């Protein structure tokens, strides 16, 4: 850091240098300056390079957890014979029917094969009320206790297709949701 040609060394140069040094020599900024800077930076945040930089670690952890859950879900969807056709294939191997019979206690009955269900259906044919898909249950002849679930016959989609007589009680792949109970509306 020298420029000998311009630092001529005459009296004026010495005086200027001396005057400037006398003005500031030994002067140090007080500690409060850094405290103010620090406070300002902590209030204002980090520098832009940092402020606008995404912290990747939480995202990576989140992504790993998501991947893990997806993998577990995928494994669950894959049966021993490969990928199942639909979510409904994950239902129990039997068929679930909610039946309208006061003699049968409310609940879920699982039928191991379709033939059994059909025979049951044949027994119930006379008692199952015919009703349109979209209309609420109308069972004037059947007294429905208020404390039992609504009368829904639910059969898997494929069973429905092969059993036209059940079409009145099954809506697509969804259970018929109708009845006097508000939680089914």
């Amino acid at each position, binding site marked *: *850091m*020298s*420029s000998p040609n*311009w*630092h001529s060394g*005459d*009296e*004026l*140069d010495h*005086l*200027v*240098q*001396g*005057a*400037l*040094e*006398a*003005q*500031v*020599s030994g*002067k*140090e*900024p*007080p500690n*409060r*300056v*850094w405290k*103010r*800077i*620090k406070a*300002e*930076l*902590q209030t204002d945040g*980090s*520098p*832009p*390079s*940092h*402020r606008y*930089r995404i912290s990747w670690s939480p995202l990576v952890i989140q992504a790993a957890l998501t991947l893990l859950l997806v993998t577990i879900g995928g494994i669950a969807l894959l049966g021993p014979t490969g990928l199942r056709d639909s979510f409904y294939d994950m239902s129990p191997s039997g068929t679930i029917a909610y039946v309208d019979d006061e003699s049968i206690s409310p609940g879920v009955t699982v039928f191991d094969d379709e033939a059994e269900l059909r025979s049951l259906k044949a027994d119930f044919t006379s008692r199952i009320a015919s009703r349109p898909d979209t209309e609420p249950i109308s069972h004037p002849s059947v007294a429905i206790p208020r404390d039992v679930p609504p009368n829904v016959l639910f059969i898997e989609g494929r069973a429905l297709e092969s059993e036209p007589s059940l079409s009145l009680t099954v809506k697509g792949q969804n259970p018929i949701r109708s009845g006097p109970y508000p939680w089914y509306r």
Partner: protein
Amino acid sequence: MAITEEELKLIVRAKQGDLEAFETLYEMHKGPIYRTALAIIGDRSAAEEILQETFLRAFKHIHHVRQGVSLSPWLYRITVNLAYDYGKAHSRNWQIALDSIIEHLVAPAAASPEHKVEERELHELVYEAIDKLEFKQRATLVLFYLHDFSLNEVSEIMDCPVGTVKSRLHYARENLRRELLADQRLPVGLAYEFT
């Protein structure tokens, strides 16, 4: 301006938002930056404010600093620019920091040798003349004489050609000479030296 290995690492860390690294950088540069502001402005509290703002800006824009380059020229440039803004916003002559007045009053003049007092008075006289210079001449003078920067370094800090630095130094000296010669307080022998 050469950069040390330590400063290089500190800048990298500060760019990542490391406040401790930035504090170390502050400790490295605070003295010269503060003294530059003080020499240009002549007011302690203003110099503190300029120092504070310089480092706030430096931290906020540190990601713009090129790899392997010292913070020093950039810090000086911010300081000079802030001092310029301060000078424009404030009338410099009336603003004398209270602590400067107190320091002046409590100075143990009686205990000092007479020639020391004379020398100090002379420095004050010269500084008064420096203080009257136009801002760019004054800032150039401070960088050149106080920090002993080369013409190239001053031109880098002031963001102007080397020729402009030479010109400013030349006119600054001329103006100082004229001002000091016109000052009746200047010792006769010294005034002769300037002619």
